[in-house]
């Protein structure tokens, strides 16, 4: 666990502790005021005036521990306006003004809860980090990082609605009391797919109390269980040497178990870079998929097939491995070859090889995968695939719900699922209509989405950071969800509170805080579920989880192999469509989350929208483009869709199952021919400002972030095959749709930027070791002379001699010299770092138009390159010249069409010899003594010269006042002072108080989370005094040495590093040398500096990506070659 959370209070949360209490600025709404009053019944901070509540970064201080509010410009002093310091009246325990407190909590999720450490300032949660103590600790992906923004979302549901109209609390109380009183009520509950032991317990009690109660579980993108009731199949990647992913994006959108061990096994030097580089320790990933996923990008061998053909491949593998009952299908020679080699590799590593089927794949495929694992002996405890018995209550599915409603078995339906069934249930369920058949439907949710509108009642739900609950992580570890803050809005109710109200004799609904400051009833319920003594409970609250509480092993039921379903391969006139989980908004539930919307899709790089993706050749065949679009053009010309703000995508009319949808289409490389992939969840609400001028519809379902975003794909889905459709037709329409991409060019253009090597010997470059040796000499670096510095970085011995008479280094802090290494071997390009950075550093969102222009503010730009192998090579690795035509012989088409995907996160690399610094006329960006390229926002006048001179283009300019002017209102930014101001909104409560909120006209960029570094260094300095106190000596007798002042090795983490589920980022003090993970990483041969050629001497270096191909595979000699032949 990181050092940052070492200051856990010993007993952070007593039942009635007030340490999560917080205040914040107030949004000028009555709900917010009432929250404030409840939070501070005998008022602590009184909010005086809105002016000071603007986004000033330390406004929290002004409001709390020593809060001040600008009370008008009273002339009591003619020198400056008077401002006030307003302390608490009664100081809450554990709150030290200006100091962060860290709590363990958990984010409940269907695929397993995410253990978290929450940073709070005066009780105001601002940042989430993974709880690394947790056995299922897995980093935090973009969704987890961004979920904190949901808490402060301006359009969060705040009031109880009855029939879409605001209702009084008393009416709701009466409704609940009525329900609770009638134990024969025909009542149905629809839960999400996440697991909560307390909820399971309450469900049992509810079943007892309400004899006619029925329980269902629903999430839009949910896999059916195949291994028996409550039996979960969880992968343990630490045990897997060979992995076959059958259309499974297990590293990001389709989690199948903690994924960090997978990435640890990707590193040839092992986790923490402790060993010598060795290919044997690496796992090998085979992926079979239609369109590129992040997992496919990580794969050593990737086979492009249409989704319907995945089953055929799986069956072929099963047959080859002699899985009982499996018969070999007919495959073309190429595929058969691929399968044969693969099967042999799996067989060779039997017991250590793992087959994973995507949860969106059919039962048949998943059954096949299970059978293969069983045959390989990979199933069971200590094996790569675990079967675990969860304690989830058995519940019905949505089809059962439909049947029950139609049978009249349900009068009252409680919709507690985080999904939005009216919007996202398969079209043939007609869930909206179904809901109309129920007398009373009660929706509990954080958003007033389609379901909230369709239900007779809507209750605003608390965020998980506001409520008591518990959850199970991927392998079932019991984890506690504790509130960091009272609900921001008085009417918010948590799921457990609602269930408890129904169980209450009087049906009394208690939410937020109990009477006289008692804890919420949900707390008592969780406490009861947990049992145990007070010590164990306190330990649970401190650690966030209970050790050794994971699920017991189970035996999955053997359902046998299903009969082969023979689906024909798709063709030009019958395309296959994949309805995919969206990397930004999941199933649509995050549509109102600005950070996620602005984070580019990791594959297509589109922001704020969804688009259909299609392979270049298919696109030509369908007449969408006149030619096959090239990955790389000779002159880097603008493509047919335009570039930047002029970029538009052609609109196609996609017809599936007799329904059609007009949707923009974009080229995606490495996609199977005749397939279309469309992310779901968009198009929830359209208003009159839509780019296409679509009819306004469901405007009120979404907020400013979510309105006019993308195209709704859900109506095309059918319940039988909710994730795929075959026989789709495409027609090109005349229209075009503006799309905002963060990256327009996808090839490296002969520049060895994101470098790759292969564990397999290369014909030209030699063995794995030889290739590693050559990493820093790839590309232009192979023949540049060494850099000669006119100015010696170590200074001059004549003019700056040290005591020893030798030249002193310019960057001269003897204690700390910060550095970072980014390992491309494990980086998959998921954008979690980008969002973690956004949360930590108060980075604003800028809206679609600004992103399209190229003004996004993300400090970490996730570049994603495709590298296609164009030419065939002979045994010496040389291109083969055709004697007749004089052209070089091309690689086979199936190799050319399946390029490698290499991500490369680029933020400021803190060049020691930084070109940006010298050009700043006002000294606003200079180097610090500890090796950071500092950026003084308040000195910056905005000449933007630094950004021009930055080779990495890592600098971002505040072209507008993005923090104060809402960029999402059309044209608002251009209206300047006349535009709508966006200050004092609840989202500003999320701001990190230790980072300046930048105004317009200044440059900003990554500084390695300098606020964290300073905090760590200052905290370390305090130790001096503590030592003196402990020793009982006079401070003047104490010796202060390097160890006193240097922070412990690897004790401070940058936000991006902390979040990274892949452990791709290591950061630390170069002075720690090999003791630090970063120091070890920098020692590796595959460590190289990006654009070393310019001589900037960056502090962030990259570790080349190592691919581990199977030499017997037909494409093996094209793997890991993204940059190796560049010169």
């Amino acid at each position: 666990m990181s050092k940052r959370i070492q200051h856990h209070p010993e007993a952070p949360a007593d039942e009635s502790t007030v340490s999560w209490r917080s205040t914040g600025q107030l949004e000028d709404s009555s709900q917010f005021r009432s929250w404030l009053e409840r939070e501070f019944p005998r008022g602590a901070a009184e909010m005086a005036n809105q002016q000071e509540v603007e986004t000033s970064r330390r406004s929290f201080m002004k409001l709390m521990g020593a809060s001040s509010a600008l009370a008008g410009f009273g002339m009591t002093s003619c020198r400056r306006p008077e401002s006030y310091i307003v302390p608490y009246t009664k100081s809450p325990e554990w709150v030290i003004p200006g100091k962060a407190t860290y709590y363990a909590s958990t984010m409940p999720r269907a695929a397993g809860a995410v253990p978290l450490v929450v940073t709070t300032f005066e009780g105001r949660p601002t940042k989430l980090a993974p709880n690394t103590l947790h056995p299922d600790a897995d980093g935090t992906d973009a969704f987890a990082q961004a979920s904190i923004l949901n808490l402060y979302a301006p359009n969060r549901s705040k009031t109880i609605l009855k029939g879409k109209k605001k209702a009084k609390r008393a009416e709701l109380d009466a409704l609940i009391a009525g329900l609770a009183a009638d134990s024969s009520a025909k009542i149905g509950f629809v839960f999400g797919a996440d697991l909560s032991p307390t909820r399971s317990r309450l469900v049992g009690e509810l079943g007892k109390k309400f004899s006619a109660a029925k329980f269902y579980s629903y999430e839009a993108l949910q896999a059916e269980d195949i291994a028996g009731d409550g039996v979960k199949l969880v992968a343990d990647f630490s045990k897997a040497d060979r992995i076959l992913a059958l259309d499974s994006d297990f590293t990001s959108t389709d989690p199948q178990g903690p994924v960090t061990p997978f990435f640890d096994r990707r590193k040839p030097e092992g986790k923490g870079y402790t060993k010598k580089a060795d290919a044997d320790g690496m796992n090998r990933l085979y992926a079979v998929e239609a369109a590129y996923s992040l997992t496919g990008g990580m794969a050593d061998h990737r086979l492009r097939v249409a989704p319907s053909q995945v089953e055929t491949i799986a069956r072929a593998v099963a047959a080859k491995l002699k899985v009982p009952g499996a018969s070999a299908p007919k495959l073309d020679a190429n595929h058969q070859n691929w399968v044969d080699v693969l099967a042999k590799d799996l067989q060779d590593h039997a017991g250590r090889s793992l087959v994973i089927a995507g949860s969106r794949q059919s039962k048949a495929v998943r059954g096949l995968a299970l059978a293969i694992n069983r045959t390989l002996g990979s199933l069971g405890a200590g094996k790569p695939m675990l079967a675990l018995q969860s304690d989830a209550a058995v519940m019905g599915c949505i089809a059962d719900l439909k049947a029950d409603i139609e049978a009249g078995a349900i009068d009252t339906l409680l919709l507690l699922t985080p999904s939005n069934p009216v919007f996202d249930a398969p079209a043939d369920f007609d869930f909206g209509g179904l809901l109309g058949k129920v007398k009373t439907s009660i929706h509990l949710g954080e958003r007033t989405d389609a379901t909230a509108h369709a239900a007779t009642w809507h209750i605003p739900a608390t965020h998980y950071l506001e409520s008591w609950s518990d959850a199970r992580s991927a392998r079932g570890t019991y984890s506690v969800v504790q509130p960091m803050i009272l609900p921001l809005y008085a009417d918010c109710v948590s799921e457990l509170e609602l269930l408890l109200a129904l169980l209450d004799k009087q049906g009394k609904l208690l939410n937020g805080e109990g009477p006289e400051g008692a804890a919420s009833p949900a707390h008592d319920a969780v406490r009861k579920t947990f049992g145990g003594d007070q010590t164990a409970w306190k330990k649970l609250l401190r650690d966030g989880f209970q050790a050794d509480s994971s699920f017991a092993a189970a035996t999955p039921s053997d359902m046998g192999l299903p009969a082969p379903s023979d689906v024909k391969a798709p063709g030009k006139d019958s395309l296959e469509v994949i309805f995919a989980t969206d990397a930004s908004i999941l199933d649509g539930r995050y549509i109102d989350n600005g950070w996620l919307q602005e984070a580019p899709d990791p594959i297509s790089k589109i922001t704020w929208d969804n688009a259909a993706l299609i392979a270049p050749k298919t696109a030509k065949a369908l007449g969408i483009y006149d030619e096959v679009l090239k990955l790389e053009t000779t002159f880097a010309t603008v493509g047919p869709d335009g570039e930047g703000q002029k970029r538009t995508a052609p609109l196609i009319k996609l017809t599936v199952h007799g329904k059609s949808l007009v949707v923009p289409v974009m080229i995606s490389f490495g996609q199977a021919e005749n397939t279309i992939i469309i992310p779901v969840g968009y198009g929830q609400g359209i208003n009159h400002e839509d780019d296409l001028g679509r009819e306004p519809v469901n405007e009120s379902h979404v907020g400013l972030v979510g309105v006019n975003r993308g195209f709704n794909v859900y109506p095309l889905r059918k319940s039988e095959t909710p994730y795929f459709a075959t026989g789709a037709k495409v027609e090109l329409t005349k229209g075009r749709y503006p799309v905002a991409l963060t990256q327009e060019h996808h090839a490296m253009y002969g520049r060895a930027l994101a470098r790759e090597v292969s564990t397999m010997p290369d014909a030209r470059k030699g063995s794995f070791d030889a290739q590693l040796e050559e990493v820093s000499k790839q590309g232009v670096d192979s023949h540049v002379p060494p850099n000669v510095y006119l100015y010696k970085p170590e200074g001059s011995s004549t003019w700056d001699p040290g005591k020893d008479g030798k030249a002193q280094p310019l960057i001269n802090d003897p204690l700390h010299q910060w550095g970072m290494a980014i390992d491309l071997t494990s980086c998959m390009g998921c954008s979690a770092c980008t969002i973690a950075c956004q949360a930590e550093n108060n980075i604003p969102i800028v809206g679609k138009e600004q992103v399209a222009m190229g003004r996004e503010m993300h400090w970490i730009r996730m570049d994603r390159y495709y590298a296609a192998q164009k030419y065939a090579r002979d045994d010496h690795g040389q291109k083969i010249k055709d004697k007749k035509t004089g052209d070089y012989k091309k690689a086979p088409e199936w190799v050319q069409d399946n390029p490698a995907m290499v991500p490369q996160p680029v933020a400021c690399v803190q060049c020691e010899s930084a070109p940006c610094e010298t050009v700043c006329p006002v000294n606003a960006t200079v180097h610090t003594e500890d090796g950071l390229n500092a950026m003084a926002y308040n000195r910056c006048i905005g000449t933007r010269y630094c950004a021009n001179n930055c080779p990495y283009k890592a600098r971002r300019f505040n072209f507008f006042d993005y923090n104060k002017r809402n960029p999402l209102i059309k044209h608002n930014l251009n209206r300047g002072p006349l535009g709508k101001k966006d200050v004092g909104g609840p989202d500003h409560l999320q701001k990190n108080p230790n980072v300046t909120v930048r105004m317009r006209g200044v440059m900003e960029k990554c500084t390695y989370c300098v606020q964290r570094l300073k905090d760590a260094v200052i905290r370390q300095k305090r130790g001096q005094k503590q030592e003196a106190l402990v020793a009982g000596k006079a401070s003047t007798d104490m010796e202060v040495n390097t160890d006193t002042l240097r922070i412990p090795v690897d004790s401070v983490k940058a936000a991006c590093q902390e979040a990274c589920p892949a452990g791709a980022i290591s950061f630390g003090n170069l002075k720690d040398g090999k003791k630090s993970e970063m120091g070890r990483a920098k020692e590796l041969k595959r460590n190289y500096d990006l654009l070393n050629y310019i001589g900037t001497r960056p502090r962030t270096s990259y570790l080349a990506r190592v691919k581990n191909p199977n030499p017997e595979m037909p494409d093996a000699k094209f793997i890991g070659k993204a940059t190796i032949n560049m010169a």
Partner: protein
Amino acid sequence: MSSTSETAQDNVSDVKLPVLKREKLVLEGRSYHWITERICGVLENRQPLLWWMLFLPSALIAMIGVGGGLFHLVSTGVGVWGNTNRVMWGWPIVNFVFWIGIGHAGTLISAILFLTRQNWRTSINRAAEAMTIFAVMCAGIFPAFHVGRVWFAWFLAPVPNANAIWQNFKSPLLWDVFAVSTYFTISLIFWYLGMVPDLATIRDRCKNGLRKVLYGIFSLGWRGGNRQWSHYEMAYLLLAALSTPLVLSVHSVVSFDFATSVVPGWHTTIFPPYFVAGAIFGGFAMVLTIMIPARFVYGLQDLITMKHIDNMAKIILLTGTIVGYAYLMELFVAFYSGALYEMNAFKFRIAGPYWWAYAAMMSLNVLSPQIFWFKKCRENLWVVMAVAMCVNVGMWFERFVIIVTTLARMWLPGDWKTYSPSGQDQLLFVGTIGMFLALFMLFMRFLPCINIAEVKWTKVESDPHYEDNESHADDGVVVEEAYQKELHDTKS
């Protein structure tokens, strides 16, 4: 010294040396008074309708474009322009370099031609200097308002402050601040000092009280005594001597903004001379663009003669060829460097997303002036005017190519993104053109557009020994005079 003094020496030493044919700079043997009348007439007579037709719209455009544009910019943010995180400098800096380039011909004509005794400068130097001043004013708007927080632009001035922080003297941009402001100041002094005797001439012709007072104040009480002329001539010489390296330095420093960076396509040693040549090139084109119409409107054909135009056309040809050489040399250096980034930068310039800008630059700047190899073309004012316009546009494209195409395709393909200007960009540029024209119109209206005193001085009879040599009339002069007259007659 004028040609006549040379012939005088020939006469004295009694050696017959071949005498270069020199044309008279003032045709038709116009008298001193005629010169005074004609030049002062420009500002004393009622302005022709054309003046109003040019001035009013220009002033309006300037007010909307510069006034309105800047108001919106400052109140709202630099985002109203098209600049992006990829192309941080777009049109504004293109326009800045464009205008500052134009601002070079004035001082160059004045200073360098003065030092090299090119007496033909006298009839164009005043207008060219005015052009310099106005162009630098237009240019200054861009970098000044280009900064994100213009209200903190004073951070650029090295004044002691409570923050105890200073500027970065290693920044080319700071050099630029010093260079451009020095250039503006010195050009203003040069222009004004040169105008003092002429202002006195106008003062002495004024009837109207207020005009007389104003011209009286600005002419500082100039009397034209030789004890003044003597110091004045020395001062003018000194200023010319100071301005010459200054002129070369300013555009060199502007080019340092690019050349000292690490950007491929910018980081080249050829930039300073290439920029200076380009500036002279563009500057002369702008002088021609303005003087050719002015000469017709105000009947100054005898003062701004075909000889002047011919000379300027030749300079355009020369500098255009130098610039063309620089373009080709850039390509060669990029190719010869073997550096991928460098080669790609130029490859993408030529045929990449902005190939049209490169094509425009090449054809307008390099090819179009080649027509001046032909004397016929140098003599045809329509052709000269057309080429001058081409060069004006071409030089704008040159800056566009250097700045925009480079930034849109820099080091990492992942950040490549093209740029397009916003309406505000275009408005402000048009506004500065309006401002430039409006200021120039005001200059024509209120200030002597030709250096009266110096033009008088170029007349052969202005030489104190003229009468001594009357017997030795220079044949060449006569022949040329006849030729010029013939030429003039056929044209008009």
